[in-house]
């Protein structure tokens, strides 16, 4: 189970909004072959993983990437 933290990953102060760059970054994250899609696969595949080290790894990387979503919304 996860919990929401009311903070960005790092404090951010955008001085020069750049929508083109924003689109590239958001696509890397949420687009085809994006990090988010990969993290959802990890979170699903951990259930059939027989090794504890890798149950942990799949869970923790999946969790870490899912956390990145909030900072990306509305920052550009």
């Amino acid at each position, binding site marked *: 189970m996860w919990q929401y933290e009311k*903070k960005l990953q790092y404090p951010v102060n955008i001085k020069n909004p750049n929508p083109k760059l924003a689109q590239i970054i958001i696509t890397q994250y949420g687009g085809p072959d994006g990090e988010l899609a990969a993290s959802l696969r990890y979170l699903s595949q951990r259930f059939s993983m027989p090794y504890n080290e*890798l149950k942990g790894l799949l869970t923790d990387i999946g969790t870490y990437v899912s956390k990145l979503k909030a900072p990306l919304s509305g920052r550009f």
Partner: protein
Amino acid sequence: MTNEQTMMLRRLSSVQFALAELTIFLDTHPNNAEALKMFNMYSEKYERLMTEYQRKYGPIVARDSDGNTDWEWINSPWPWENTKEMRK
């Protein structure tokens, strides 16, 4: 956001990053004594910083809200609203 608040948030974010990296490292190196020691050190820092930051600036985690007066969780600033123009 004051400078002091930003600095404190930065410190908190650094500690959280260290914990995230150590977590993933320890998953595949569960008996690494040095990593375990670092993890415990940063865990302690994290607890201290969270307590201090939330005491000063309000809840970061809903569960740590002070429910004595009002439900400040919804009324304290949300992370995507950090400019004066965006806040109501």
